């Protein structure tokens, strides 16, 4: 059994010091991995993420993160990434990593993801260049996620996102902002590739639990949703939801 600790939307910045640290003291005894689902900073400042990195760096378990929209706000996401990686937090964007946990290979593919909406009400890359860029960004990141997941040779596979792949974990948010909270294209990527678990954040007023259309469990680990320093999910190898045969359009 693999124990995954996960949280997103910590929004560290001035005044955040020590918010998490007391709850991390026993984490190494309770979890095999820590996954961070983006929005680790308030405004995307390297000095903000340094406060978090200083609380994480001594944790003796593997840590993997994606960045969120807040982490891009200062246009210094590369520096944010470097600060995290200096604290042994592997940051993924359209990439994957595989971690050996007592002989079980846990593969994690990660992307920030982006918005667009959900089935029946998704934006199209049609019309103005701004609209093409918006939806095109989601398509590009979803394609990269699918490739990263598909390329993983692992016993367990996890998709780590910031934006939501499904509507169910947005329940509680205003319907008007769903297109800014996620995209079904992310779920389609995961369902095409197959996975054991999808984690995301971003939707602070959403719900914790849902499933992709193919049945893969999705958990919204935004800290205001889980209302703890992290949640822990356990996975058994060999029970993965495999992609269904492609059908429909030929």
């Amino acid at each position: 059994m693999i124990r995954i600790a996960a949280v997103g939307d910590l929004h560290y910045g001035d005044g955040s010091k020590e918010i998490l640290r007391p709850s991390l003291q026993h984490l190494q005894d309770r979890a095999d991995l820590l996954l961070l689902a983006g929005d680790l900073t308030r405004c995307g400042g390297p000095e903000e993420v340094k406060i978090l990195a200083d609380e994480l760096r001594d944790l003796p378990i593997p840590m993997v993160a994606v960045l969120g929209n807040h982490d891009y706000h200062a246009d210094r996401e590369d520096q944010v990434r470097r600060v995290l990686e200096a604290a042994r937090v592997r940051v993924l964007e359209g990439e994957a990593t595989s971690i050996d946990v007592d002989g079980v290979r846990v593969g994690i593919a990660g992307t920030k993801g982006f918005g667009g909406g959900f089935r029946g009400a998704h934006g199209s890359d049609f019309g103005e260049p701004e609209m093409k860029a918006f939806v095109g960004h989601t398509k590009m990141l979803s394609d990269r996620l699918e490739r990263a997941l598909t390329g993983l040779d692992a016993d367990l596979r996890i998709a780590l996102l910031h934006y939501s792949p499904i509507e169910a974990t947005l329940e509680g948010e205003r319907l008007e902002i769903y297109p800014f909270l996620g995209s079904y294209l992310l779920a389609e990527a995961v369902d095409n590739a197959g996975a054991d678990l999808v984690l995301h954040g971003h939707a602070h007023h959403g719900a914790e639990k849902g499933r992709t259309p193919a049945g893969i469990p999705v958990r919204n680990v935004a800290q205001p949703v889980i209302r703890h320093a992290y949640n822990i999910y356990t996975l058994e190898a060999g029970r993965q939801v495999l992609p269904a045969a492609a059908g429909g359009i030929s």
Partner: protein
Amino acid sequence: MSEPRADYLPEAIREKLIHDPRVAEQDLRVEVQARRVRLGGNVASPQLKQRITEVAQELLPDYEVVNETTVVSAAEPDGEEPVS
């Protein structure tokens, strides 16, 4: 700030709070009634809650600021959830 029409004041405040780096919080609820501003939503720390009050008061010095935001717990979880 130059005061917008009353109909647009809550959204103007919300935008200011999003873009003020001392706050940068996108999920705040802002309601304005008479000369009172009520703020709601989740925040990560008591310090941030206090800062939100201060920034809102700076923006609208002639209004009463009622900060009803909730500080979210960062305690350890009690258990774990088997998902497969």
